[in-house]
Structures are given as structure tokens and as C-alpha cells.
């Protein structure tokens, strides 16, 4: 009997259903903004801020390296010319072309060596640049995840968000590290080669340019398709990640109900969708290279035929044909590279867009300007006509008003779904009130900074969730600088000390996910110790001891009473033993407070509280 945190999500369009409509529900409720390629690329580019000097350096190296690369065919041409001259010369005239050949070859050697060195440096630099950039993308995304409201997480499969941080960012990473250099050097080489070819023979240069429009047409046609397919592929991968995460996390239930085969079936559907779009994306991508080869060979043939013709007419030398053939090949390869990188860029854009989708989600309402810090509150809490609903059409709390004086203990009881946990959610500003206000020390909580407000509370939540760290790390969570004595005392007060000492490694025991080393009740005790150690002025215990046995609970009660001294506390509980020491009991029903008073008063009245206490005493014969 606590309350619905958002009773229904039927309106969320993209919750991945268990049914066959996997394709239709692939977008997971995240708005897909209209595809705007330039916008996406500009946004990716923004992540290179701070790397621009290094990128400039890489570009500079690429310029030189490309110059070396382009010098290659020219020097080969010179060498071939020299060789041709040597072929036709007698022994005494041999010296001149032989010197020319030697010089050309030394220049060639230098160009190759220099090119290799520069390429290695470029790759080295680019690896750093790209991975730092990718780290920033991930960091930015995770930072953003801190500022998103809980409502965002309530509707998204965890695995899909994980996929955005790894698989999608990976898609960006691969592209940036592999294609950036390719793209830059491609452009440089195309421009450079063009200039050289123009200077050598404008007619031949023109012939070499003929395939270019075809290349553009081909690339844009293919990229248009792959872009959509890559996005669908990343979406499917995300959904798959979500399903795997959920299945593995809930494996106990899967096994208990023998649902392995059904889970597999559902997995199969997503897997099939992933396979289908993946294959299509790959096929379209694969079209690129053979087509480019045809185009380049057409160009190649043109160059050879034209060159042959011109040489026959004596306009150009045989060496020049060799040079041109090399150049036109060199011209086509960077064009291939550009086309290829452009297509790979589409997969980066697809990944980046999924990251941007999260980045564009509305954040938790920002702190008020000049927000006040809530430090050392007296601890007076007041709800003033508070109404709230997780969805606008389903009110959960209706005009709830109550006051808790500093240092008082307030127990909140009521049936499941009455609105109890919602009160906690609003108090710590997990959600914002729809109307009315909540005041601490007479000031609306919206005027405090959110972080200082939350730090003022020690909260023990229903599920007693712990990190996969050691017991000590978990207790230290709320106050990492606490001393050893304080840890031991917190564990003692929370009644967790005995259980912890019995563990093989005591406080250094690593908690495992399956819960094999600690029972649910023991986990709750550690969660209480964690809140106790943080020891703020306000304490909220939301069914903090529901899995703890009564004897242990009685044992912690004394510790808790000590702890609650001087602290304003709210206790949500079902067991009478937990609430009988409260100053005030609020009985909540259907979002309203229906009874209030001290436990003694309420027992006298004929109401819910009396029935509750009688039921517990009498056992289940109702």
C-alpha cells in the first residue's frame, strides 16, 4: 500500500510491446526530430572544440603527405621518360638520362618515406583526437542523464540507454577515427591532382573529370538510403540491448516461470528486425565500391584512349600518358575514399542522432535563479494544498495539507496506491507538485537548490537498492568522508552490524547482484545504515524495514528512536510496531488525508487505523 508512481503509461507511443509489432515500436518513445543532416554534422563538429588546433596540424600533415603522394606518379613519369630516353640512346649519351633517372628515383624514395612517416603521425594524432572527442560525447550524455527527470527513466528500457552510450557512440568513434583522415586527404588529393593535371594537359584533365558528377550522383543516392537504414539498425540494436538487459536482470522470474523459450521468441523478433535492416544497410553500402570501380574504370579507359590518341598525334609524350594514367587512378581513389567516408559518416550520424535524442530531452526544472542553499534546516515541513498527478488526467494527491514541526515523527499509513510514496517523491522533488506548495522552514522547496534540498534528506527507499561495491562503500555512499567509528556506529544503529560481521569478509564483502550473499532484509539494513550515516536533519523511511523481521526491527527501533531525536522524520510502514511511537499518524486514502492524530487517539476512533491494528493483532481470521 503505497502509491502509484504514474499509474499508466498507455499513452507512451513507443513502449516496446511483446507483440510482433517490433518495427513499429522501435523508437522507444523518444521523439525523432526531422532528419537534418547538416544540423547533425554541425553538432558532431561542435564536439571537436578544443581539438581544432590538433586537427589543423593533422590537416597540415595531410597537405604535405598528399603533395608527396601526388609527386609519386609525376616522379614515376619522369623516371619512365628517363628510361625511355636511355632505351634510345647510345652509350656515350647515356649519362644524362641516367642522372635524371637517379635523381627522380631519389626524389621518389624521399617522397615515399616522408609520406609514410606523416601518415603514421596523422594516424597517431587522429587516434587521440577521435577518442577524446568520443569520450566527450559519452561524458556529455552521462552528464545529461543526471539532469533528466525520473519520469524520463520510468518509460525507457535501461538497455536501450546503455546501447546509446556504447554502441551508438562506437558508431561515431569508428567513423571519426577511420574516415576523418580519409575524407580530408581525399579532398586535398582531388584538388591537388586536378591542379597538376590541368597544368599538364587541360584536355586530358577534362577527360579525367568526366566521372565526377556520376560519383556524386551515386554517393548521394546510396547515402540517402543507408542513412535511414543505419538509424533503424542502431534503433534495433538498442531495442535488442534493452531486451537482453531486462531478461538477464530478471532472470530469476524468467526461470521461475520457465519463460526462457518465450523470451527467446521475443528476442528472435528483434534479432530478425536487426538482421533485416542490417543486411539492407550493408547491401546498399556494398553497392558503392563496385559502382565506383565501374565509374573509375570508365574514366580510366577514357584517359587511356584519349591519351593514346593524343600521343599518336604527337601532342603528348608516352611518359605523359603513364603519368596521366597514374594520376587518373590517383584521382579516382580519393573520390572512392570520399564516397566511402561519406557513407560511413551516415552511420556516425545515425549513432549521433540517437545520442542527440537523449540530449534534447527536457531536463529537470532548473533551480530558481539565486536558489537558496538548504543547509542546517530546522526541519519544519509543511504541505499546503498539494495536488499532484503523474499524468494530468489521473490525480494521485488531492489538496493534501499537513504540518510536521521540527523534530517530530510523522507516520504515513494507508492502502497500496493511496499516495504515500508520492508524498516522498514530492518532498525530495523527484517530481514537481501540480498545485499547492511544500515548505521547509517556511520556504517553498522550489526556491532551494535541488541538490542542497536532497542532501538535507536521509531517504531509505522501498527497494533498498545497493551498488555492486563493498558493504563499506555502500554505507559510505551518502557521506564519503565519514570515519571508521562513524561507519560502525551507523551499522550498529541500523541493526546491520551483526549481519555484516557474519559475512566472510565483513565490511569488505563485495555485494553480488543475485543477492546470494545478503538477504533482502539485510540489504534493507545496510540501506538504513547508509541513511543513518548521512544523518541529515530530515529523515524519510519508505517501507524501509518491510523485509526485516520483527525481532530485528524491534532491535533497530531503539537505534532509530535515538536517531530521530532532533530530526523531522517521516515513516511509511505497514507494521504497527513501526509506527506506534510516532507523534502523528496520517492515514491516506485515495490521495486525501482521511484521519490524523496520535496513534493513541486514532485507535479510539472507529476508522482505518483501528481496523489496521486489530487485523494485525488478530491474525488473518478476518
Amino acid at each position, binding site marked *: 500500500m503505497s502509491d502509484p508512481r504514474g499509474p499508466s503509461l498507455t499513452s507512451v507511443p513507443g513502449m516496446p*510491446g511483446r507483440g510482433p509489432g517490433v518495427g513499429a515500436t522501435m523508437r522507444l518513445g523518444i521523439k525523432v526530430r526531422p532528419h537534418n543532416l547538416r544540423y547533425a554534422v554541425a553538432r558532431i563538429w561542435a564536439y571537436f572544440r578544443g581539438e581544432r588546433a590538433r586537427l589543423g596540424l593533422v590537416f597540415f600533415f595531410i597537405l604535405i603527405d598528399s603533395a608527396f603522394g601526388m609527386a609519386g606518379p609525376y616522379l614515376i613519369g619522369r623516371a619512365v621518360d628517363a628510361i625511355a630516353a636511355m632505351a634510345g640512346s647510345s652509350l656515350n649519351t647515356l649519362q644524362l638520362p641516367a642522372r635524371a633517372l637517379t635523381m627522380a628515383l631519389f626524389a621518389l*624514395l624521399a617522397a615515399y618515406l616522408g609520406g609514410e612517416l606523416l601518415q603514421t603521425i596523422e594516424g597517431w594524432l587522429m587516434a587521440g583526437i577521435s577518442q577524446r572527442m568520443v569520450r566527450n560525447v559519452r561524458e556529455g550524455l552521462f552528464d545529461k542523464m543526471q539532469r533528466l527527470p525520473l519520469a524520463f527513466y520510468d518509460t525507457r528500457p535501461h538497455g536501450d540507454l546503455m*546501447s546509446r552510450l556504447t554502441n551508438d557512440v562506437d558508431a561515431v568513434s569508428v567513423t571519426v577515427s577511420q574516415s576523418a583522415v580519409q575524407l580530408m586527404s581525399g579532398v586535398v588529393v582531388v584538388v591537388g591532382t586536378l591542379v597538376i593535371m590541368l597544368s599538364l594537359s587541360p584536355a586530358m584533365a577534362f577527360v579525367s573529370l568526366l566521372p565526377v558528377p556520376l560519383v556524386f550522383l551515386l554517393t548521394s543516392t546510396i547515402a540517402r538510403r543507408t542513412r535511414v537504414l543505419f538509424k533503424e539498425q542502431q534503433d534495433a540494436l538498442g531495442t535488442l540491448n534493452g531486451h537482453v538487459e531486462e531478461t538477464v536482470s530478471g532472470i530469476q522470474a524468467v526461470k521461475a516461470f520457465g519463460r526462457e523459450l518465450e523470451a527467446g521468441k521475443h528476442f528472435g523478433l528483434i534479432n530478425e528486425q*536487426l538482421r533485416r535492416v542490417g543486411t539492407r544497410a550493408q547491401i546498399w553500402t556494398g553497392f558503392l565500391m563496385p559502382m565506383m570501380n565501374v565509374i573509375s574504370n570508365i574514366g580510366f579507359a577514357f584517359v587511356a584512349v584519349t591519351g593514346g590518341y593524343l600521343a599518336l598525334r604527337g601532342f603528348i609524350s608516352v611518359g605523359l600518358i603513364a603519368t596521366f594514367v597514374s594520376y587518373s587512378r590517383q584521382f579516382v581513389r580519393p573520390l572512392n575514399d570520399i564516397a566511402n567516408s561519406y557513407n560511413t559518416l551516415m552511420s556516425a550520424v545515425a549513432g549521433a542522432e540517437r545520442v542527440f535524442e537523449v540530449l534534447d530531452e527536457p531536463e529537470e526544472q532548473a533551480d530558481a535563479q539565486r536558489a537558496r542553499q538548504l543547509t542546517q534546516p530546522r526541519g519544519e515541513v509543511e504541505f499546503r494544498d498539494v495536488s499532484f498527478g503523474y499524468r494530468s488526467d489521473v490525480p494521485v494527491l488531492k489538496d493534501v495539507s499537513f504540518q510536521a514541526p521540527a523534530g517530530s515523527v510523522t507516520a504515513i499509513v494507508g492502502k497500496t496506491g493511496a499516495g504515500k510514496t508520492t508524498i516522498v517523491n514530492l518532498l525530495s522533488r523527484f517530481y514537481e507538485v501540480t498545485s499547492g506548495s511544500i515548505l521547509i522552514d517556511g520556504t517553498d522547496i522550489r526556491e532551494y537548490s535541488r541538490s542542497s534540498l536532497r542532501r538535507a534528506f536521509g531517504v531509505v527507499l522501498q527497494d533498498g537498492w545497493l551498488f555492486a561495491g563493498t558493504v563499506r562503500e555502500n554505507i559510505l555512499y551518502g557521506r564519503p568522508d565519514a570515519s571508521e567509528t562513524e561507519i560502525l556506529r551507523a551499522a550498529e544503529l541500523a541493526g546491520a552490524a551483526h549481519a555484516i560481521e557474519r559475512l566472510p569478509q565483513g565490511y569488505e564483502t563485495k555485494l553480488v547482484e543475485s543477492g546470494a550473499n545478503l538477504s533482502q532484509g539485510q540489504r534493507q539494513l545496510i540501506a538504513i545504515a547508509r541513511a543513518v550515516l548521512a544523518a541529515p536533519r530530515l529523515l524519510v523511511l519508505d517501507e524501509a524495514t518491510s523485509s526485516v523481521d520483527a525481532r530485528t526491527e524491534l532491535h533497530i527501533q531503539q537505534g532509530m528512536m535515538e536517531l530521530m531525536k532532533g530530526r523531522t522524520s517521516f515513516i511509511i510502514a505497514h507494521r504497527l510496531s513501526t509506527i506506534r511511537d510516532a507523534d502523528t499518524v496520517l492515514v491516506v486514502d485515495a490521495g486525501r488525508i482521511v484521519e490524523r492524530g496520535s496513534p493513541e487517539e486514532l485507535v479510539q476512533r472507529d476508522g482505518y487505523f483501528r481496523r489496521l491494528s486489530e487485523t494485525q493483532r488478530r491474525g488473518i481470521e478476518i
Partner: protein
Amino acid sequence: MARIVDTGVAARDIAVVLRLGLLMLSVAVLGAGGATGRNFLSSIVSYRFGAQLRADLFHRITSYSFKELDAFDTASLITRQTNDVTQVQAFVNGVMRIFAKAPILAIGGLVMAIALEPGLSVVLAVAVPLSAGLITVNLLTGFPRFRRMQEGLDRVNSVTREYLGGIRVVKAFGQEQGEVRRFAGANGELTAASTFALRVMAFFGPAITLFMNLGIVAVLWIGGFRVAGSSLQVGKIIAFINYMTQILFSLNMISGIITSFVRAKASWERVGAVLAMHGSESFEQAPAAILPSTASSASVRFSGVFFAYPASGGRFVLEGVDLYCEPGRLTAVIGPTGSGKSSLVALVPRFYEPTRGAVYLGSHDVRQLDLQQLRQRIALVPQKTVLFTGTIAENLRWGREDATNHELEEAARTARAHDFITGFPGGYQTVLGQGGVNISGGQKQRLAIARALVRKPEVLILDDCTSSVDAITEAEILGALRDSATSYTCILITQRISAAAAADCVLVLDEGKPAGLGRHETLVRECDVYRDICIAQLGPEAVDV
């Protein structure tokens, strides 16, 4: 090419030039046709392979027992399913694409070059093995780096997953900055690992090209002076260099594939580790003894059970437990936190197996029963409620796929869930978020009970699953359960005396050892642990009754 220059240009025959040009073109088109076909095939095959691999992994993972699952980090299992498979798949695709092409190009280039001019081929004899050697070194140095990179991904996944799981706690304690730091640690490690891996690759790619380019210089050098002796035509040198470029091209291709192979090999080992561990709960194995389904066979008996979790270093959580749970009766297990209650019932559906002693369903040791059948006959409602993304009706049908709407409603009524379900605007079609995050704890627990009831099990195990339900509703649920419990064996783990008092038989556990067995009235008189619990819960007057 060589012939255009040598024959055409030399013979000054324009027709030959044109004819040869056309020939080049048609060869190119033919080649493209072949490449496209190869593309289709390799895309289809590699993605099918990837899909199959993922499916195999998924089935293998779901067939793991808890003990086997504990051997892997959950986040790592997820990375392996998606990211690692993607790497392997990309490699398969790449390999198929160049599988025949690159070696044929390389070998063809070699053969043609040698045939064209054996004298110049000495150069190749040096350059090609050198490049091949480099590729091998590349492989050996790259592999461990990429493995570290994938492990970095694991950690990023792991931190994220934990953050998502504990987001309320993070926010409640205002520990966002700590989480960002933790993430930055994992993120930094991944960045360092991948930068390192990429840098290794950045070194080898250009080095391979360099070797072949040096070969070209050598060819020109040697060729030049041989031409002078008139033993070589210029066209042949050009052609030879073209063949060398071709070999270089295919070597580059191979080296590119090697790069992806290195990454794929690292991933493949991780995938392989999952596949290599044989799931002991595989459903493909031959069914063991099949149990006839009669009411009398559904009793549950624990006989001298000792149990220690495999990872706990042999510390017993259960020591010498004997218990007989009769069909049609309500058996309760009560005891302090951590006394072994949940561990005891986890042995019935064989989530774990007892270290010593045995658990019997009817007259059969559960270890001898077909696992799937065993679990089909048991419904366990765990302490920590696990619901799944999907509608309420879909979640309830987990109990039994073919349950009618009427049966769902009936189960929901018994679990006192019907009223709040119909209170939602979407009713039974209301969509739950992951883990049922959008409904309250008590509502989740009641859905979980209803889900178990839909199954119409022979053995129903309720593991303290009403802790978030108020006492009045709990009493109603237990009352309704007792009325319908005539057909099944019901084991109830509870903290509440009120619930235990209603049971036909109560086992009191204390630190894994049985401390009492009998009805409420007897235990109040005879069992100290039980009396303590009573006093703690109901006050001293409760034991005077």
C-alpha cells in the same frame, strides 16, 4: 594497358587503341557485376551469421544456472551480445567480400608480374614477404589492445546499468557528482584503451604501403638500367609497376581485414567464453523422469538439507533442515532476517541445488526431474518483485500463456489486484515500464502473486511477497489463498505472526538451523525464537493467549 602503350601507341594504330579501350571497359563492368553479387551474398550471409550468433548467445545465457550466471558480469553479457557480435559480424562480412578477391588479385598480380619480367621479380621476392611479416606482427600486437578496449566497454556498460538501476538513490543522496566521477573513470579507461589500440593500427597500415612503394623504386632502378641494355621495353616497366600497385592494393585490403580481424578475434574470444560454458539448464537435453501429475504427488519434502552458495566460500546458510509440506495445506516459514528462508525455497525450483541432503517433489528428488516440467508445476513469487516491460495482461500471462481473460481476472481478484488494475485508465492493457517502475511496491507485489496464481501451480511459494501490502489487504489475500489452496501445496515465507498464525504448520528458522516446527499455538509455548518474534510484533500480551 601495357598493350595500349606498346602495341597501339608504338604501332600508331588508332583502331587498336580504341578496341583495347573498349575491352578494358567491358572487363570493368563484368568485374562490377561480380562485385555486386559478392556484396549481396556477403551481406546476407554475414548478417545471418550475426543474427544466429546473437540468438545462440541468448539461448545459452538463458540456459545458465544462477551459479553459471554469477561467473559473468551482467553488463559484460550484454556487451557481448551486441557490441562483440557486431565486431565479429563486420569481420565475417569483410572477409567474405575480399575472401577470394584479395588473394586472387595479389597472386594474379604476382604471376603476371613474374611472367612479364622474371628479372624484376626479385624485388617482389623481397617486398612481399616483408609486408606479410608486418601484417603478422600487427596481428600479435593489436589483439591484446582490442581485448582491453572491449573490457573498457564492459565497464562503461556496467557503471551505466548500475546508475540506471539506482537512480532514485543517486538522486535522493544528491550523489550525481560521484556518479559522474565514477563514469569518467570507466570512460577514461575506455578512451585510453581504444586510443592505444588505434595507434598500433596507425603504425602498421602505412608501413605496409611503404614496403611496396620501396619495391616500385627498386623496379624503376633495376628496370632503368636494364632498358639501357635494350633487354626491356618501357611499356613493360609501366605494366610491371601497375601490377605492383595492384599487389599493394590487395595487400592493403588484407591488412585492413587483419585490423578488423584483430578486433574481431578479441570479441570472438569473449563471445566464445559464453558459448563454451555449457548451460546446465539447457532444455535441449533429454528429459529426465517425467512425473505423473496427481494431487498427491505435489508434496514438497526437505530432507536433511545443507546448503552453501557456491560463491560464499562454503559458509552454510542452511544446516540440517527437514520439512514436509502437505498438499492442500499452508506451510509457513518464519525467522529473522538472513536466517535462510529465501535460500530454502530457492532449492525447490532448483535455482540452486542443496550441498547435502535432498529436496523431493512428491516421491522424486528434484534433481532427477526434467527442469522445465519441474518449474512448470511450481509458481514462486520472489521477495523482490520482477515485472517486465509490457501490459499488465502480458505480465500476468507469464504464468500461463494460454490463460483466458476470465482466468486472469480471477487470479487478480484473489491477489486483490483486480480493483486497482481496473482503476487505471488502461485497465489490463496498462503498459508497465521496466521492472514495473510506474506502479507502487504493493501493487507490484499483488501483480506478482496474481501472475503466480494464473499458472494454477501444484506448488505455490510466496517468498515474503506481501511486505509492501498493508495488513488488511494482506489478510484478505491470505484468506482468499487459503480458500483456494485445497488443490496445491502452499509454502509461505513471512515476517508476520498474523500470517504464520493462520498456517497449518510453521517452520521457525534461525541462522539456517530449524528452531521450531508446529502450529502457532504450540510454538508460542515451546519455541523461544518464535515467542520473541511474537512479543516484538504484537507486544508481550500476545503470548499470554
